[in-house]
Structures are given as C-alpha cells and as structure tokens.
C-alpha cells in the first residue's frame, strides 16, 4: 500500500520536461515535492500565478501572494501573474499539460465527483469543474476506498458529478489505473498489494493489464 507521500511520488513520475501543471489541494499538492531532478516543470495556481515557488520563510509571508488553497507561497524567477479569466482561459485552451486532483468517486468512464455530498454543507466547486472540463490530462489522486471500506472506483458515480468522461488515470494507495474503453485498467499495483485485493476493492469495470507490474518509486 502507498501512503499519501508515495501516491504523490508515483504521480510525479508522470511529469515531463516542459510541463505546466496544476495541482489540487491535498495529496496533489505533495506532488510538487517529488518533481524529478532536471525536469523543468512549472506549477500553475488558478488564482493567477504561473511559476509557484515553495512556502515562504517564516516572517516573509506576503498576504498578497497566495495559492488556490489560500496558503502563503512565493514566486520563482520567471513567474507571471494574471487575472482569473486568463488563468482559466489558458486551462480551457489546453495549455496546462496536467491537472492532478483529489476525488470522492471516479467512474470507469472517467466521470468524477469531488465537490458535493447531498445533505451536507456544500462549499462549492471552486475551480474544479473548470479544471476537469478543460484540462488536457487529468490524474486523480485518492484512497482506493472510503472510510467504510467501500470502493471509490465505481461503475457510476453516486455523488453529484464534477465532470464527465474526463479522468485519464487514477493513482490510489493500491495501484495505478488507466481509464480505457473497458473501464479501469490496472497497470501497476502497490508493494504488498495483490491483484485479488484490487479486484475485490474495485466496484467499476476492471481489467488487469498483461504488463501489470509493481509500482517502483
């Protein structure tokens, strides 16, 4: 099983030189810690920044400089600020190569639900619907099952959707799954996890890739 840091580390393997990347709140944010050396990857924050740097040193926080999670951050050489319309414009125009975000549920056709639980306080979708509708390539980082042990990889989402047919890949604590015409395709499994466990804990259509192998971090 992968812990959160390991999920992030595995997703970081998807990065390529020159990628512009948007990282959602939670596990996705951790991906920034594992960008492979030598790759030039630029982080986009949808509140209006390309070239997001690390958190500021204590005492150097600037209230005018935050990320989409409202955390204080820094710039790096080559950063650029812009307004919210341009920010989502570049996402919509396909300029952001990769978006990583969390989810409550993913369906085997790429549908995603991550913004609303009926009966609970709804805080809003923020930029999630824009990101999932418009990004070129979307990877979901999440736990394979919910706290009750129920699969979050479903044949159909039960929660209100954030976007349809948009997720390309899911990385969970149990493995890595492409979304194909035939549903989830397990291409890698986590150390210590069996294929049978993955089959048991996946509710949506699942195939196991002939080349399936253990995740190497």
């Amino acid at each position: 099983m992968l812990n959160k840091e390991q999920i992030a580390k595995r997703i970081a393997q998807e990065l390529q030189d020159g990628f512009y990347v948007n990282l959602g709140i939670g596990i996705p944010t951790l991906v920034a810690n594992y960008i492979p050396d030598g790759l030039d990857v630029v982080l986009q924050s949808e509140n209006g920044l390309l070239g997001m740097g690390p958190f500021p040193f204590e005492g150097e926080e600037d209230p005018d400089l935050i990320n989409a999670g409202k955390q204080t951050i820094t710039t790096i050489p080559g950063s650029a600020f812009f307004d919210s319309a341009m920010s989502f414009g570049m996402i919509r125009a396909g300029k952001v190569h990769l978006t990583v975000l969390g989810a409550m549920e993913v369906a085997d056709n790429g549908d995603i639900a991550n913004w609303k639980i009926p009966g609970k306080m709804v805080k809003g979708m923020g930029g999630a619907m824009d990101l999932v509708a418009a990004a070129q390539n979307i990877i979901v980082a999440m736990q394979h099952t919910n706290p009750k042990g129920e699969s979050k990889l479903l044949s159909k989402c039960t929660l209100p959707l954030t976007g349809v047919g948009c997720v390309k890949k899911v990385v969970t604590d149990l493995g890595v799954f492409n979304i194909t015409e035939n549903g989830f395709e397990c291409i890698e499994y986590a150390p210590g996890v069996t294929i049978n466990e993955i089959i048991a804990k996946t509710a949506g259509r699942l195939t196991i890739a002939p080349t399936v192998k253990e995740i190497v971090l």
Partner: protein
Amino acid sequence: MKKVVSGADEAIQDIPSGAVLMLGGFGLCGIPENCIAALVKKGINNLTCISNNAGVDDFGIGLMLQKKQVKKMISSYVGENAEFERQMLSGELEVELIPQGTLATRCMATAYGMPAVYLLAGYGTEVAEGKEIRNFNGKNYLLENAFNSDFAIVKAWKGDTQGNLIFKDTARNFNPLMAMAGKITIVEVEELVEPGVLDPNFIHVPGIYVHRIFKGLHYEKRIEQRTVRKVSK
C-alpha cells in the same frame, strides 16, 4: 472628469438596498476592505453579491453576512464561514454556486461587451441544468450569460486620478475583471498617484472603466492559511 472621492463612505453613498454588487478578491486576498467596512456601516441590505468567496466569519464579506445585509451570494466557494452556513441552511441566504472560471469569464464577457459565452465547465453536471448546451468541434459547451451588476467594488494596488489601475501579485485575481465589468466601478487603492506616474505599458485596467477611486486606509490584509518553511540550516 473628477473620479477621486474622499473615501469609502463617499464612494458607496448611492448604493441602495437591493443592489447587485461585484466584489473583487480571492479568499481574503485583494478584497476591498474599506468599502466593505463602509457598506457595513451604511447598513443597506438585500444585496446580491457576486464574489468568488464570502469571507470568513469576522472578515471580508463575512462582516456583511453578520449584519444580514446579503440576500444572495453568487460564488464559486463559500466555506470557512459558520454564519454563512447557518444562514444558508436556514434559507435566509440564497446561494448560487458557479465554477470559478465561469465566474471569471462571465465578468470578462461583460467587460468586453459579449452578451454570453460558451464554456466547457459544468457540462454533464447539475450546473448545466436549464442551460443551453451546444457542441463545437466534438465538445459540449454551456451558454453562460454576462453578468449584469449595478456596482463593481474592487481593490487595486496603485491607481492614478484618472482611474488607471495596477494590481499586485495574486491580489489581482477577479479585481481587474470586475473593475471592467461594473456599470459603476468603485476602486480603493493602496497608493493613489497623479497621471503619468504609472507606466502606460503596464496598466492592468485603463481608467475608462473606472468611475470612482480613493486611497484606502489601514489595510489589515488578513492571511487565511499561513504556511511557511523553516530556514534550512
């Protein structure tokens, strides 16, 4: 062309109860603190507020919520606010949630004289309910209307007396878009300068969009999530 007003009270003096307001800012970053305080003091109500967020309990639009001045919020994300939640769950407060990029682009549409725009966000979700859907080049888009607001209230970093504005860092966010979308645009700035001080190549919002401007006072600039790293030894 006298755009400079004495302060927030004068700037907002003719905003009536029931008005539709755009309020700039993302979270607590780049919000028009002075104007919000003046709106609270003035005590008008039944307001519709178009703003990405709704502040926190004791800061930002949260202050207006405490005074029950807001009838409806149009936002993308409204967490972090207990009074908001109470009013929403009790039905006192109407809430319309809109994807963040759609919110921004509907402001831009107004600013650019486009009556409606086709956007991807929300297709196949409850956001699409009742909206026209149209396929272009194999993708489905929703037709989203430009916003129609009475006043836009924004915060800029520097401005000149003709209304030319520049913004700082991520305090830019929705501010320039709303500044350009307002029927009447009210701007508070940290620094108010004479024409010619700002470089004409680096104006974010040209003065033509701005109706009232003043130097704001006592910015608190509260930080919502203070995250830092230690100096590495």
